[in-house]
């Protein structure tokens, strides 16, 4: 792997940008690996990277049915935060934020992590109570979160309209360590670093069956590029997790819904932070390219189509136009959908399964991007050691049987 530095970028500029090489190999599948990761998004590629870098397990392949980062890793709104209510969630997401802070250095790849602050707006008395509860819970858990008055919120985000709207802004919770990152760079950075450690990244390689031996343990997969044997398989397939896991006879409490997002035409820097509103449901930031990145809600029904209804995006834009009247004449450039897998309590599952050798990382629902490094890190641990890391130990499948829910769904009262 050629190391990137300021000097190497300067030299590339001096020779007309003609010395670029592919950043990872495109190998043929080997017949046998020590471990397979199904799903070449950020969580899967990251898990392969940590298997190789921290657990000395480099005979690993990542199987991706399309191209890496082409699923939800390339379809989200890139928001990163850890201000979750429950201690289990806050610990897991804050583990991710800490890894984000050093990720560009660790991968020698600029993931453009920008801690510009994530501000969540309160519009009602109920919002104030809920968000203040989050602030206090987070501060008690060592996660930064602070309460702002409407005037302080407007000072932090000057375009914000706090007064003359249907739901005036009556306060806000601000996590200054939150922010955004470049989503494609996360997939590419992990792929490049994992590849350098010997991980095979197999694109256009769709898993069609999971083979189990007489004892019930996994022994490999059938793919569109042939049979591959491995004693350990980690599934990080987001919206398609139910489909993959059913191949091994495992049913999970998941439902897959379309979640839409859209970007505007690019404009000069106008928006200094991330603003979210759960009550009128919209979230917005500005990418370094200049596009406003806007997230909408999920559609009402389960689907695998990667698209949704226009009334859902319209609803989000109406909320944005209320909060930021200056954007009323902006034109939207693109919109798209991703398929997100929701658990009943809206917390993920990162766990062993009833099938020996089969591990699953799913249920991130509408907010998995922020957790990418933390999720990948503890998932690799779980696969390598056949036991959960302390941070993902509560995120089992059995919690739905045992009543140990981590009920962020009730805590947020909306998709989050």
């Amino acid at each position, binding site marked *: 792997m050629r190391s990137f530095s300021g000097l190497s970028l300067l030299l590339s500029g001096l020779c007309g940008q003609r010395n670029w090489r592919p950043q990872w190999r495109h190998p043929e599948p080997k017949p046998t690996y020590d471990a397979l990761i199904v799903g070449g998004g950020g969580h899967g590629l990251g898990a392969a990277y940590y298997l190789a870098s921290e657990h000395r397990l480099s005979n690993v392949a990542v199987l991706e049915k399309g191209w890496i980062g082409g699923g939800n890793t390339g379809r989200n709104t890139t928001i990163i935060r850890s201000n979750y209510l429950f201690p289990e969630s806050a610990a897991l997401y804050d583990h991710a934020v800490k890894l984000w802070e050093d990720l560009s250095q660790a991968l020698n790849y600029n993931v453009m992590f920008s801690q510009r602050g994530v501000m969540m707006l309160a519009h009602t008395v109920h919002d104030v109570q809920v968000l203040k509860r989050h602030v206090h819970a987070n501060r008690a858990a060592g996660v930064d979160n602070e309460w702002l008055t409407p005037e302080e919120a407007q000072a932090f985000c000057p375009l914000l309209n706090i007064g003359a709207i249907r739901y005036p802004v009556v306060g806000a919770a601000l996590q200054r360590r939150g922010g955004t990152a470049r989503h494609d760079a996360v997939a590419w950075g992990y792929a490049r670093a994992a590849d350098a450690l010997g991980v095979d990244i197999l694109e256009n390689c769709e898993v069609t069956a999971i083979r189990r031996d007489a004892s019930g343990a996994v022994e490999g997969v059938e793919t569109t590029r042939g049979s591959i044997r491995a004693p350990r398989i980690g599934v990080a397939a987001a919206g*398609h997790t*139910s*489909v993959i896991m059913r191949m091994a006879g495992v*049913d*999970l*409490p*998941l*439902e*897959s819904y379309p979640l839409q997002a859209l970007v505007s035409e690019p404009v000069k820097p106008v928006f200094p932070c991330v603003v979210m509103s759960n009550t009128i449901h919209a979230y917005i930031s500005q990418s370094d390219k200049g596009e406003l990145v806007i997230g909408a809600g999920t559609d*009402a*029904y*389960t*689907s*695998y*189509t990667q698209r949704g*209804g*226009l*009334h859902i995006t319209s609803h989000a834009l109406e909320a944005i136009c209320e909060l930021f009247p200056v954007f009323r004449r902006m034109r939207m450039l693109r919109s798209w959908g991703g398929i997100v*897998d929701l658990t*009943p309590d809206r917390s993920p599952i990162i766990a062993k399964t009833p099938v020996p050798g089969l591990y699953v990382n799913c249920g991130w629902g509408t907010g998995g991007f922020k957790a990418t490094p933390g999720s990948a890190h503890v998932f690799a641990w779980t696969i390598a050691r056949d036991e959960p890391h302390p941070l993902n130990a509560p995120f089992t499948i059995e919690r*739905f*049987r*045992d*009543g140990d829910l981590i009920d962020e769904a009730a805590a947020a009262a909306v998709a989050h």
Partner: protein
Amino acid sequence: MLLIECPYCGERPEPEFVYGGQAHIARPRRPADLGAQQWADYLYRRDNLRGVHAERWRHTHGCGRFFNALRDTTTDHFLATYKVGESPPDGGRAGR
């Protein structure tokens, strides 16, 4: 936006409806006899099918009645809608 055919009112736009999740999940007849895993399956386990899915809808802003539908989750096309209590028009093959 989906165009949904209510069996009572005819075709109406999606915002008139509320989605009710997977259809034909029977509430246990003797809840007290259920173990924890059976309760979890009843409450939380869903087929989440990639293909033809039998599901409930309610025409909330119309007649207010629940009905069932068969919809292909890979295209969002409705194959059929039918009244509560009726068998799926495909003979219950959806997802199998």
